[in-house]
């Protein structure tokens, strides 16, 4: 028998702490596949967030540093500037990146750091028990918005990708999902591009993944995929929000 699909080398052979149907596991696997395909495992450094993915260093089979809540972009900036030949990426949830770390991501993006950012938007704070995040949908019930998010009281869900796309320093920004095989393939393609851009020195690349958090949403895994499709995607539109890759490559002569 010939192998068609084998577990990527960039993943450790361990059982993760993620809930059944959680998007984190799927995105970890796609990142690991991309790192394997680009043959950069031994020079990759990931920065793990605070949130359910805090244990990413136990799951990825390459170097991973841990940053305080919301600070992965600052840690990534330092590592990439000191070790420019490494492939440096941050992996962050929406509480981490869009709430406590909003300032960090905006400035790293605006400086045009040559890093890759993988942003997991699951519309709540997963690890701490499902509180409202800046990305929580209007009307969505969380432990801190038990009658549903009221935009008059809690503001509107933050569209981080759109926000970062307005900044001069950013090169590639795409929002993707995991709702079915076609979209998982698209997500992998986006992640691959975001890492390839770093290899060519093209600049700040950002992939937002709409990601199921079944347990905190009070849904079964398959219902959570449907929730992403029916509820999240209409608000957080999928697609490329910005792509200056070719322009930047020309500029760099890459």
């Amino acid at each position, binding site marked *: *028998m*010939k*192998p*068609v*699909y*084998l*577990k*990527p080398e960039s*993943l450790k052979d361990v*059982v*993760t702490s*993620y*809930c*059944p*149907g*959680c*998007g*984190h*596991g*799927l995105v*970890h*696997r796609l990142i*690991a596949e991309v790192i394997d395909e680009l043959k950069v495992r031994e020079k990759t450094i990931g920065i793990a967030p605070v949130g359910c993915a805090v244990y990413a260093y136990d799951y990825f089979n390459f170097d991973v540093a841990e940053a305080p809540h919301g600070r992965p972009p600052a840690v990534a900036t330092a590592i990439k500037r000191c070790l420019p030949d490494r492939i440096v990426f941050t992996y962050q949830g929406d509480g981490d990146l869009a709430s406590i770390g909003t300032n960090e991501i905006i400035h790293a993006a605006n400086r045009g750091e040559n890093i890759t950012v993988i942003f997991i938007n699951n519309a709540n704070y997963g690890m701490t028990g499902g509180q409202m995040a800046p990305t929580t949908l209007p009307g969505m019930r969380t432990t801190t918005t038990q009658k549903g998010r009221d935009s008059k009281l809690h503001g509107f869900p933050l569209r981080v990708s759109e926000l970062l796309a307005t900044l001069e320093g950013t090169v590639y920004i795409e929002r993707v999902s995991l709702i*079915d*095989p076609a979209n*998982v*393939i698209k997500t992998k393609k986006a992640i691959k591009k975001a890492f390839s851009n770093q290899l060519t020195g093209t600049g700040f690349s950002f992939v937002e993944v709409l990601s199921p958090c*079944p347990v905190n949403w009070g849904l*079964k*895994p*398959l219902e959570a*995929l449907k929730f992403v499709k029916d509820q999240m995607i209409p608000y957080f539109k999928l697609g490329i929000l910005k792509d200056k890759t070719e322009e930047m490559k020309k500029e760099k002569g890459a």
Partner: protein
Amino acid sequence: MSKEIKVKIDKEKCKSCGFCVLYCAKGILFTGKKNNAKGFFYIEFDDKLNKCNSCAICALMCPEAAIEVFKEDKK
């Protein structure tokens, strides 16, 4: 017809999310009756009629990297 298994599921990693079952076009993956160390009823592969074409959609959807897929060598 090959008797070798095309889809290998690591039962300790499976969390029974059902993504692989939902998207397998051949309907040959199902939630089993036995549970793993974590208590999840892990998925089993039953392909008596040799319907599996090794498309690996199940592995593509698996959040746990619990699935590995193989295909027959051409004779």
